């Protein structure tokens, strides 16, 4: 007990040095825990983005690409799934529900997702949470829009707000003022890309694209062009598009490729989320879809593809872990250096302790105790720092990055790491303790000054 008191008072005596040491350990521990939590949080936010979906179907592409496009809204698929294939897949006997997704448009930087009302019933995230409405309801008419929590927050939108959707995702400059959408529902926060999405029905998406071809808006002199490029059969009159289109399809049925391209911007889908009647049907349905004639499609298992994607990041994970450990080691070595520099001035104190009957063991124990206490305080402070920063990130920036780290208490792994930090500090604390032990034997009761 007296040894602990002496260690504490000795540290208090060297308050500045002790405080700096504690902070250097705290910062290194906080850095390690912070990086680790961001890593886990990123993984968790990633993994919780989609739940309950058994298969994601898209035009043939790599599974990771399809996952990124459909779930994370990163990039746009090159090709789409035709309406015909969608109908076929939807009506497969194993399919319980399907949610079509038409991506590729934006509203003031937010992704527009074209879908059906099924999205509100079947899209799930996290621990199988369905989308929930903060205000309003799902779309009723073609020009109703449901917006994610972040869209509402950042653009300050409210119910009945009018909004203009534009074609394309980058520098969406061509607004279609003719088709103003109206906010009919605002979703609750999900911490997934849905928060950054504007959800409209497929008819709405079609309406945006009226009169568009190959990503180009109708040119002002389109009548003239229409004559000149008539053989392309792509120029529709904005007001009777469907009729016109159908006509073209019939006339040029042979030109399949051409039509498919046209469909990209009209009524083809970027992806379809499928829920099956039973989990064990997944592989059979996947095989069935891969074998579709006429249209090359991919069907992926979101969970599996997610881990494929994550494995790309794993080597980075390991290096972050190693760097974190090295930073902690540097913090502890800093503490060791700080203690070592005090050893000479301590020789006097040690002779005094020896004179009142302390043995060399007890004298050196004070140094190990000191290292242990500094490391403990540093680790605790580091833990607090990490917890506070991670929670601040979640509260203030989470929505922007879709970051989600749910643990308030340290995990078992973190407790293990902190234990390791304390163990290392005790082991390194033995260095000055051993030196002190030797000094105290050599000095005896003579006071070195």
């Amino acid at each position, binding site marked *: 007990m*007296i040894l602990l008191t*002496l260690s504490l*008072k*000795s540290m*208090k*005596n060297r308050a500045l040095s002790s405080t700096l040491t504690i902070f250097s350990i705290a910062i290194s521990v906080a850095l390690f825990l912070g990086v680790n939590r961001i890593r886990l949080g990123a993984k968790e936010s990633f993994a919780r983005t989609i739940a309950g979906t058994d298969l994601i179907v898209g035009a043939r592409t790599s599974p990771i690409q399809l996952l990124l496009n459909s779930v994370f809204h990163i990039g746009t698929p090159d090709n789409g799934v035709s309406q015909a294939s969608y109908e076929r897949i939807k009506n497969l006997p194993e399919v319980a529900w399907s949610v079509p997704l038409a991506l590729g448009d934006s509203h003031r930087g937010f992704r527009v997702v074209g879908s059906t009302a099924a999205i509100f019933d079947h899209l799930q995230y996290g621990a199988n949470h369905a989308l929930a409405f903060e205000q309003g309801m799902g779309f009723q008419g073609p020009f109703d829009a449901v917006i994610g929590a972040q869209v509402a927050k950042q653009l300050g939108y409210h119910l009945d707000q009018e909004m203009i959707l534009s074609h394309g995702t980058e520098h969406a400059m061509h607004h279609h003022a003719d088709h103003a959408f109206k906010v009919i529902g605002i979703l609750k926060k999900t911490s997934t890309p849905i928060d950054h999405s504007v959800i409209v029905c497929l008819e709405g998406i079609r309406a945006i694209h009226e009169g568009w071809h190959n990503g180009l808006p109708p040119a002002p002199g389109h009548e003239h062009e229409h004559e000149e490029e008539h053989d392309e059969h792509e120029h529709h009159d904005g007001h009777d598009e469907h009729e016109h289109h159908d006509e073209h399809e019939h006339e040029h049925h042979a030109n399949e490729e051409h039509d498919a391209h046209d469909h990209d911007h009209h009524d083809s889908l970027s992806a379809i989320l499928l829920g099956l009647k039973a989990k064990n049907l997944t592989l059979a349905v996947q095989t069935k879809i891969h074998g579709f004639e006429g249209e090359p499609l991919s069907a992926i298992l979101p969970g599996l593809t997610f881990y494929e994607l994550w494995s790309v990041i794993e080597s980075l994970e390991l290096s972050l872990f190693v760097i974190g450990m090295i930073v902690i080691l540097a913090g502890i070595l800093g503490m060791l250096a700080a203690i070592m520099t005090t050893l000479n001035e301590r020789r*006097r*104190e040690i*002779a*005094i*302790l*020896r*004179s*009142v*009957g*302390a*043995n*060399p*063991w*007890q004298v050196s124990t004070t140094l190990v105790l000191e290292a242990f206490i500094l490391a403990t305080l540093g680790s605790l402070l580091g833990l607090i720092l990490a917890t506070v920063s991670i929670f601040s990130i979640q509260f203030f920036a989470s929505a922007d990055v879709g970051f989600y780290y749910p643990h308030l208490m340290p995990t078992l792994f973190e407790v293990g790491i902190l234990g390791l930090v304390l163990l290392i500090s005790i082991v390194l604390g033995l260095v000055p303790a051993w030196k002190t032990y030797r000094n105290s034997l050599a000095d*005896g*009761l*003579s*006071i070195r*000054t």
Partner: protein
Amino acid sequence: MNVVEMNDVEFSWENSTQPLFRVSQFQVTPGQRLFVSGGSGAGKSTFLSLIAGILIPTRGSISILGKATNKLTFAERDHLRAHHMGYIFQMFNLIPYLSVLENVLLGLRFSSIKQARLGHNNLEQEAEAKRLLNALGLNSNLANVAARNLSVGQQQRVAAARALLGDPELLLADEPTSALDAVNCAQFLELLFTECQRANIALIYVSHDQTSAANFDRQITMESFHS
């Protein structure tokens, strides 16, 4: 029983063939005040370290209260010192960041026996520490002042209070007054004697300065141990 008893003691440092000193017969009886004089390098501090059990003799035996130090383990010798001795250094006696009272009570911290003599109660221990500080001429309102803020004279009094606390059988003093002026020195010794007498504490007092030697019961010189 003699507090200290030496028989045919020889001490030499490890790398030296010539012994630093030889003591054929040496006793200190309970309550006896002994003055040991000697110039620098005569081995005064080494002599005290032998009695304190920090060093053990190369030959012969030293007994403290009947226990031969060369037959004890390191830890036992540390206990012997903790329980039965007090020690005053020439200077730098105090741990600078502890208060005066904490420095005095430090004398009890490693000895259950000294504590038992005062009663295990903290208040009784503090009361005795404060009484000793007063008896040695220190105002009790200095008790909570950090030791580093005291003058050298005051520090030596605190050191004496620590060494006396718990009534050890033996007080070892290594030139405790060398940093004090003549008036302070005489006063310090007088108070030390009073307290030693009260608790029947034997005092071995080492100094190169013969001025106060006459006040002791016995005087020896380190030179008499050199053959």
